[in-house]
């Protein structure tokens, strides 16, 4: 069974901190995704990656960056955390043309 593991279920950080959210998948999937989910706004795509070192912006990339140095790992970076980045963050992976498999999310609070 596909497993997508996000490093933390809950995380509390302070405004201005650099924050790293890590995601690892164990199925050798080519594609990986980062979403944020907010009440009333559904899931919004931040970035996705279709190969190692390759990335493309999603719908809301501002304030975020990503890193994919290895195929199984996709990191989301908040360069300077702000309170409006308090949210649920979801990572997903998929094979080239298959459906997405999601982790259980990281609930991030920025104080």
């Amino acid at each position, binding site marked *: 069974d596909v497993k997508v593991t996000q490093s933390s279920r809950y995380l509390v950080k302070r405004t201005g901190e650099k924050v790293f959210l890590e995601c690892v998948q164990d199925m050798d999937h080519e594609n990986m995704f980062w979403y944020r989910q907010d009440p009333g706004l559904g899931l919004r795509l931040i970035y996705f990656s279709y190969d190692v070192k390759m990335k493309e912006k999603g719908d809301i990339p501002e304030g975020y960056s990503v890193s994919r140095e290895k195929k199984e790992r996709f990191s989301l970076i908040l360069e300077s955390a702000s309170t409006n980045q308090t949210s649920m963050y979801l990572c997903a992976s998929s094979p080239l043309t298959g459906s*997405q498999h999601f982790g259980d*999310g990281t609930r991030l609070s920025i104080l």
Partner: protein
Amino acid sequence: LAKTTQPISMDSYEGQEVNITCSHNNIATNDYITWYQQFPSQGPRFIIQGYKTKVTNEVASLFIPADRKSSTLSLPRVSLSDTAVYYCLVGDPWTNAGKSTFGDGTTLTVKP
């Protein structure tokens, strides 16, 4: 990317069949339709995917009319555990790394 429109919420009772319709008027020729289910505090989970006509698996059926401008997810004989948010996605799995836009989803509440 095709935009999707779903009802915000639906109520049903245990044992009933539930049909959730999704509109996607600007669906492209190569786009597939995919449905996901999400429980609280979990990531979405794939339910079913289709291109045209009807697709059925062990948990749901997906009906897609000839013009493909809408689709209907059908859940037979729902139970309390089917209470969840259901998302309809439209996208081309062969390009854009399968990038699709999640809409706001439909919150299904199943009552005893």
